[in-house]
């Protein structure tokens, strides 16, 4: 069905169709619309889920963990400071191998207090064992949320999935949305370590130096296996609903001399910059990274690479730029742009490409630069 929705509403709609049994969410700008929408679905009887009012994000994740341990589908959503407050519990969710799906509306971290788009919030959850996917359109937010449940709950994965969408730039932007009937695209959840009141056990209790590392390895094993599961989900989604997704969205990359790598809504801006650059005779391409964890193999050999990071790791560099350099053994021009919702236009991006200097880092908007 064709409709019009914001990114937040698209996520809520997908959640309604995925039919979680327990939803525990604490509101935070710019994610609040997701909470409101799902609360409305539940109150109107459109979604028969147990909606748990919580007093914090830490509790929201804890409630999802408890619910998920009983083997039911769970969902939560957060943003920025809320995600950071959850941090202890996000680690627990992954370690306890619970396929919780969470929408994170990317927002900068204070101070200075800022409610606009940035990816540093999710980047700080990088090493928790969550799968992370970044979307760029309302349609993609919807489609990816549906896929997230299927991927998280797959027996070879059983890890939580975080669907990231840019604050305001996507969460509050209205675009056309073609909804689907998921039917059995998301099979019923079978959690092998579901709690059984008739057979009480301790879960994730004291685990000594002789055992702990085995469970850590199992997380990594599942991360690696998830590459195949994600690919299969993309394929099945295309076969059923006709829309194509990959680990990256590549735009005019085939013959490109220079490829711009980015995540989220910036990737769509890059596509316009690529068209304009090509009109000027510069063979540019855009590679928008969707899946950040697990980190996919990227085809970036024999061309210049410009990476736009909407995040930063202080004392180190742009997280995406350095991930690409490490995984691909290639030099990049690292651009730090869009922090705290800083406006980055396609003309600005074309400028990054034209003035690229491989091996350097460039902070957009900072005079003279580094």
């Amino acid at each position: 069905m064709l409709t019009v929705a914001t990114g937040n509403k698209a996520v809520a709609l997908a959640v309604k169709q995925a039919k979680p049994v327990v939803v525990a969410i604490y509101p935070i700008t710019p994610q609040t619309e997701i909470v409101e929408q799902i609360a409305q679905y539940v109150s109107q009887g459109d979604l028969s889920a147990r909606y748990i009012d919580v007093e914090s994000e830490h509790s929201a994740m804890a409630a999802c963990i408890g619910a998920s341990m009983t083997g039911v589908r769970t969902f939560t959503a957060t943003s920025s400071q809320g995600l950071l407050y959850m941090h202890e519990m996000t680690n627990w969710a992954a370690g306890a191998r619970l396929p919780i799906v969470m929408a994170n509306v990317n927002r900068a971290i204070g101070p200075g207090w800022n409610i606009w788009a940035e990816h540093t919030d999710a980047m700080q959850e990088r090493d928790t064992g969550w799968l992370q996917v970044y979307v760029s359109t309302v349609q993609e937010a919807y489609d990816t949320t549906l896929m997230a449940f299927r991927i998280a709950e797959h027996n070879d994965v059983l890890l939580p999935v975080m669907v990231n969408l840019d604050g305001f730039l996507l969460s509050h932007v209205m675009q056309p949305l073609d909804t689907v009937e998921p039917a059995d695209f998301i099979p019923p959840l079978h959690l092998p370590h579901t709690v059984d009141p008739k057979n009480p056990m301790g879960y994730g209790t004291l685990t000594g130096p002789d055992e702990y590392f085995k469970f850590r390895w199992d997380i990594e094993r599942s991360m690696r296996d998830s590459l195949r599961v994600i690919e299969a989900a993309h394929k099945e989604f295309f076969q059923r609903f006709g829309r194509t997704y990959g680990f990256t969205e590549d735009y005019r990359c085939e013959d490109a001399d220079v490829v711009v790598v980015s995540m989220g809504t910036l990737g769509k801006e890059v596509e316009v910059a690529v068209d304009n650059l090509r009109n000027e005779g510069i063979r540019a391409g855009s590679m928008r990274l969707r899946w950040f964890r697990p980190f996919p193999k990227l085809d970036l050999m024999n061309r210049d690479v410009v990476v736009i990071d909407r995040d930063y790791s202080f004392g180190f560099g742009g997280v995406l730029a350095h991930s690409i350099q490490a995984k691909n053994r290639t030099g990049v021009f690292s651009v730090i742009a869009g922090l705290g919702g800083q406006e980055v236009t396609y003309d600005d991006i074309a400028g990054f490409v034209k003035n690229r200097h491989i091996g350097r880092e460039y902070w957009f908007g900072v005079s003279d630069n580094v």
Partner: protein
Amino acid sequence: MSVRRRLAMSRPTEGAAGRTGSWRVFLPVIDRERCNQCGLCQMYCPEGAIDEDLNIDLNFCKGCGICANECPKKAIEMVREDR
């Protein structure tokens, strides 16, 4: 084929953390004359080391003194143990 272990799971067993009695510095000594067998010491014992007849299993009593502290009759005295 063995079951894939994704999460550490355990069942309660006696002495799962070893013989915690070896940690003890103070030994609880019950004055049976004063004791009215209310059972609060058994209820509060964090190690479950006190049975229904209010005998203390010294293999697992850590000597924490919670029983002595909770006893409304002051019938339990913590005595330094020389080992």
